[in-house]
């Protein structure tokens, strides 16, 4: 049975129909990759699931019950943890403060030592290269911030984790660790939604691939039954696209490597 | 440009006509002193009601803002008033209002403060400069009697208030030749008692026991000065006031404040109602004297000290013992025979 399933989700921003009639199912212990072109509506979908935007229409079913997710706090309570594409960190707070924001240890007399120790643990696990956890997030590099945002989502005890382009800014080592992490999450029986533009990563960890195109469903594929080319043509809506042209040209010129 | 009217036109304005159901504007300057809302306005309204039961009084308070007062005057003219009684925020700037009113044949009566630049139709007042002089002189006389030696502090009113300037001038005219040294003086921003208190506190550390008296330009700042001495834990020297607020009467009864000044507001307010009513009927009342080219009537205020507080404030009915002699002040009242 699905932990999370969406039916008929639509969302309009002003004159732009960002999502139209979306369906999606995520099982426990399953990694669903959501892919799509820029502006396809992936992040909008994520924001609807995590209570940032209310949907205009459609139903969300979580663990068999139909739910409303009016606020991010409601999503937290349900057990949905999210890493947003725009990270959503407080730049004026330091790494520890951001990691534990809203889930502080000993709320009436914060336990800084425990939080700092745990922070180092989490960051080490993601092989983050952060010199000090006591600097404001404003002073971190793009990848360091992304690591902090990912580490954040692991606190608490989520049932579904949504990762919106989690590896976009990460270095090669950190990317590898995040992919490891996703696999561990799957083994622990969590549902994982991962959004990515990197087909290699998608093929490496996902079980199912859901394609969005211009705000609509454009196919769901089991990952071992589909080729990268098929996914790309579902994304772009054509088999003849910039990617395939570039690949051909590359082959024509030197017989080269395209991911 | 069209027409001759400065300010606004509108409504059927002008002197004469049917005085019944007419409107008269009563424009007061500020809220720094409580008297305008608490005494002048009700007294004027009562008298007007008595003279002309169907007339309507338009009361406005300009909250120390000359342009707001201009707006209020224009609005009154737009409503078709038959006369304006105005206590100008700024005596000079009120000239514009006089012009507007007169160009629409609405008579205008200067109340409390004169309008020297453009003569109004009438001027009724006690004179602020005189007030300053009276309170200061009363203090100086008292100090001489006590054979005090030392200097005086002077707490003036707001530096941006023209009336305060007049009072200040009056105080100087009494203090400067008195032989007492003027230790320091201070223009209290917005007449704020807190500011007066802070300043006097500073002067207490500076001059210690040289201070034999404080001339404060109104009861609020006087109260601030007294609080400063109390808070410094030293003896309170004689402190003046002005306006005869209830709180000041209490302090006088208790011996904390030396004097205040009672303006015969009732008399002035009623006199102005009378004059306004005559104008509204189309008559031209004659002045007792002429000041600033304006037919005028001036009244003399009375200095109130512990000696005469009973007769000036209570026997005359300006204040009721029940309001003043509360709690800790009951004893003082008893001693003075106030009931």
């Amino acid at each position, binding site marked *: 049975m699905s932990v999370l399933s969406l039916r008929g989700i639509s969302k309009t*921003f*002003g*004159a*732009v*129909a*960002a999502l139209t009639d979306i369906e999606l199912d995520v099982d426990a212990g399953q990694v669903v990759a959501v892919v799509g072109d820029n502006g396809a509506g992936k992040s909008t979908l994520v924001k609807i699931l995590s209570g940032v*935007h*209310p949907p205009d229409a459609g139903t969300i079913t979580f663990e068999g019950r139909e739910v409303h997710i009016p606020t991010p706090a409601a999503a937290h309570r349900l057990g949905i943890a999210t890493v947003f594409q725009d990270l959503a960190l407080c730049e004026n707070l330091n790494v520890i403060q951001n990691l534990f924001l809203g889930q502080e240890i000993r709320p009436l007399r914060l336990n800084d030592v425990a939080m700092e120790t745990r922070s180092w643990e989490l960051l080490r696990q993601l092989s983050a290269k952060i010199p000090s956890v006591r600097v404001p997030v404003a002073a971190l590099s793009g990848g360091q911030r992304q690591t902090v945002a990912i580490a954040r989502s692991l606190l608490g005890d989520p049932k579904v984790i949504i990762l919106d382009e989690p590896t976009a800014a990460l270095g090669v080592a950190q990317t590898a660790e995040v992919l490891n992490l996703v696999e561990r999450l799957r083994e622990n029986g969590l549902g994982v939604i991962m959004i990515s533009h990197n087909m290699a990563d998608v093929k490496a960890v996902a079980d199912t691939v859901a394609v969005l195109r*211009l*705000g609509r469903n454009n196919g769901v594929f089991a990952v071992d039954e589909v080729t990268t080319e098929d996914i790309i043509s579902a994304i772009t809506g054509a088999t003849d696209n910039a990617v395939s042209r570039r690949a051909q040209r590359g082959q024509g010129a030197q017989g080269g490597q395209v991911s | *440009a*069209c*027409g001759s*009217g*400065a*300010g*606004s*036109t*509108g*409504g059927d304005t002008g002197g004469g006509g049917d005085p019944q159901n007419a409107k008269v504007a009563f424009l007061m300057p500020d*809220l720094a002193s409580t008297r305008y*809302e608490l005494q002048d306005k009700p007294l004027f309204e009562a008298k007007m009601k008595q003279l002309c039961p169907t007339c309507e009084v*338009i*009361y*406005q*308070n300009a*909250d*120390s*803002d*000359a*342009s*707001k007062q*201009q*707006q*209020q005057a*224009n*609005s009154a003219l*737009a*409503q078709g008033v038959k006369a304006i009684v105005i206590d100008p*925020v*700024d*005596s*000079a*700037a009120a*000239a*514009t209002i006089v*012009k507007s009113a007169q160009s629409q044949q609405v008579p205008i009566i200067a109340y409390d403060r004169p309008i020297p*630049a453009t003569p109004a139709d009438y001027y009724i007042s006690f004179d602020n400069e005189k007030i300053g002089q009276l309170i200061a002189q009363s203090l100086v006389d008292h100090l001489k009697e006590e054979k005090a030696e030392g200097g005086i502090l002077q707490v003036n009113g707001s*530096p*941006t*208030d*023209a009336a305060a*300037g007049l009072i200040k001038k009056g105080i100087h005219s009494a203090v400067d030749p008195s032989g007492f040294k003027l230790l320091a003086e201070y223009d209290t921003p917005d007449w704020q008692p807190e500011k007066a208190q802070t300043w006097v506190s500073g002067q207490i550390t500076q001059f210690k026991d040289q201070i034999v008296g404080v001339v404060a330009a109104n009861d609020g700042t006087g109260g601030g000065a007294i609080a400063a001495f109390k808070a410094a834990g030293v003896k309170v020297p004689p402190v003046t006031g002005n306006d005869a607020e209830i709180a000041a009467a209490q302090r006088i009864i208790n011996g904390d404040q030396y004097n205040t000044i009672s303006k015969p507001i009732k008399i002035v307010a009623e006199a102005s109602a009378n004059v306004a009513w005559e104008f509204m009927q189309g008559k031209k009342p004659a002045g007792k004297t002429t000041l600033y080219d304006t037919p005028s009537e001036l009244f003399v205020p009375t200095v109130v000290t512990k000696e005469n507080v009973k007769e000036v404030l209570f026997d005359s009915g300006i204040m009721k013992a029940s309001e003043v002699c509360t709690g800790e002040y009951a004893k003082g009242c008893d001693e003075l025979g106030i009931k």
Partner: protein
Amino acid sequence: MTAVTTDRQDERLRQSEGLRGALSDVVERARGGDLGVIPVVVGLIVIWSVFQALNPIFLSSANLVNLTLESAAVGVIALGIVCVLLVGQIDLSVGSVSGLSGAVLAVLFVGQGLPVWVAIAASVLMGAVIGWVYGQLFNRFGVPSFVITLAGLLAFLGFQLYVLGTKGSINLPFDSGLVNFAQLDFVPAWLSYTFAVIAAGWLFAGGYLHARQRRKAGLSARSTTTLVVRSVALLAVLAFVVWYLGQTRGVGWMFVFFVALVLIMHYLLSRTKWGRSVYAVGGNVEAARRAGINVRAVYTSVFVLCSTFAAVGGILAAARLAAANQSSGAGDVNLNAIAAAVIGGTSLFGGRGTAFGALLGIIVIQSISSGLTLLNLDSSIRFVVTGAVLLLAVIVDSVSRRSRTSHGRA
């Protein structure tokens, strides 16, 4: 030309064309909460109806003429405030600067007997210099503008008292051109109507040329019908206003002057590179800097503008009162000017607001003040009611803005 213009090719966009399209656009934006000034206008209409019900003189021509004239001085100051708020800064000293400017004007003109234009020029120049100093302090030392202008508020109040000296108050001669301009000079009826026609014609011509250019470039454009409807509507509104005010004294030149300043600022803010950089600095100063904008120059220009407008406002206020005194510019000038800008939709955090906002905002504030003046209330009640009405006027606006954020617009 393609059937679908370049900017409408995305299939996720709802399509709409012509007058119908323009209308459905408005409805769309209303649903999305992006109503521009409409909510403020609605708020204004509510206030007007209530006051009119309470005292029928409120909407009389005479009172509205007063209202326009009384709006001008603080309105001009609010225009400057809009500029500083747009870059996310504040100027608390506009009141003092306007007071000082009035005092300098009076002293030079009356006290020293200089020609009036010299006195005006000196006051305005002084305003500009003050703004320039603010800009330097802000850019050099990075002192928050709140503190700089708070210091300015105090210092220039001191200067004002000093300049006026022992006099305390100086009358401007009633027969001087300046006072006439502020009190007695009204636009002749024929000229007012001409202005109205010119404005409507301009709106149409400008819109038409723009639309033609866009069509040529293959972009969507307003249909000619829409343009005609818009201009005719404008003409009707303006003609009615002119006619109604003309029932008594008409449209004052001082108000025309204010409106002209609003139009100029609107042009500068929306159609020039400088205006763009003001919005950019207010939106994200670091991004603006990285785009190669001279951020310091923008800050300085804005502070100079604001202080200059404050000085101009001070001159207008002095002319209107025919006097400069120690309390000119004191009291609630600061708060009213800032409130007018905020009510007109300018954000205190920078990057959002328009010149027209200042016009609307000051009219809201003056309406409240004028309406309450007519009601003849006790001071205590008047304060309470002023507060309540102010709040109501803004709630209308804010509710719509709120629905905008929930619809995902910034």
